[in-house]
């Protein structure tokens, strides 16, 4: 039983990075495919289309930072906290990256025929990013009180 709890603790350390990366893969993939398709239908603004498809990559970076913050000698005291916070922030990063990818794809699809609305079209993706940032920040704050860390 102790080994299983420790296993969950270690999983909790890496879950933010893993889930963040999975979300970014799916999100960037969707937006990138939309950007590639749009290249067939536009004569300019290629960089903006492809660039905006990279927005969902930030979730991986947030995940890495949380994992670095959580990285410590996992004990029976710290494992439950690491797992629960790691899992929840990982899920938040995963879903936000996927949804942000869809937002970016929609923005790319809109921008190709109305380039002047790019700023407005990309706003939903920025809003989704905001929620990912909230999850990231509060994971760091709450994670600071888990035993075994620099603040614990």
């Amino acid at each position, binding site marked *: 039983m102790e080994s299983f709890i420790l296993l969950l603790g270690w999983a909790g350390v890496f879950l933010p990075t893993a889930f963040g990366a999975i979300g970014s893969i799916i999100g960037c993939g*969707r*937006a990138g*495919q*939309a*950007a*590639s*398709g*749009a290249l*067939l*239908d536009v004569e300019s603004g290629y960089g903006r289309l492809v660039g905006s498809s990279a927005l969902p990559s930030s979730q991986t970076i947030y995940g890495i930072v949380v994992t670095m913050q959580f990285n410590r000698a996992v004990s029976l005291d710290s494992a439950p906290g690491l797992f629960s916070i790691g899992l929840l922030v990982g899920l938040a990063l995963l879903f936000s990256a996927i949804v942000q990818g*869809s937002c970016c*794809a*929609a923005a*790319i*699809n809109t921008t*190709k*025929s109305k380039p002047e609305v790019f700023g407005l079209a990309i706003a939903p993706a920025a809003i989704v990013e905001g929620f990912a940032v909230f999850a990231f920040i509060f994971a760091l704050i709450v994670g600071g009180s888990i035993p075994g860390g620099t603040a614990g």
Partner: protein
Amino acid sequence: MTAATNYHWFISSLPHMPRSFDVEHVPISGIRLQERLRMLGDDDKNTVEQVQRFLLWDRQQPERTDEDVQMEYDRLMSSVSNPLVRDIITYRMDVRTITSALRRRRLGFGPPTAVGQYVDHIRKHWNHSDFRLQREHPWISGVREALDANKPLSVERQLLNATWDRWVKLSDGFCFSFETILLYLARWEIVDRWTRLDESAGRKKFEQLLAQTMASGGGIK
């Protein structure tokens, strides 16, 4: 891209559909559209072919009898499984049935032996000006007036407008999915049909249809 379709890529590669079908040109040529459609997965390609075959068939052909329409309808409904395609077919068939009923009543004939969910309903409300279908099909009164005024182009415009609105409404529920592609095709077909319309040719065709019906005493669709 052969086994499964990359819908994000595919849909973003298509030019935007105009807000109305009343434009001078189709947003993408038929040849280019067919080239793109060849990049769909096998299953999707089969469904798209079913839709395209139906939309092509749906363009009026005076030599068809009600029995032909019934047979085609039965064949389609037994072979098509995609819910949206069935919806597209059903709606178009309903429009045909109602239009046929309006024309037949105007010519003094009885209710049509057409297909779809409204056959019995129309028979029951034959003497009502809009067959008590105005709520579901608000275009009926406008089409009836245009038929009475002998304005075939206005009839065609209103029928296409009603169908266009229906496809636009359905499109709102989909984004980057196969259904989006099907509804794009359905709308493209309307734009294509409209841009090919010629008022004088349409009037000639309408008169020819009318003459045939009067001569045979029925069979109009």
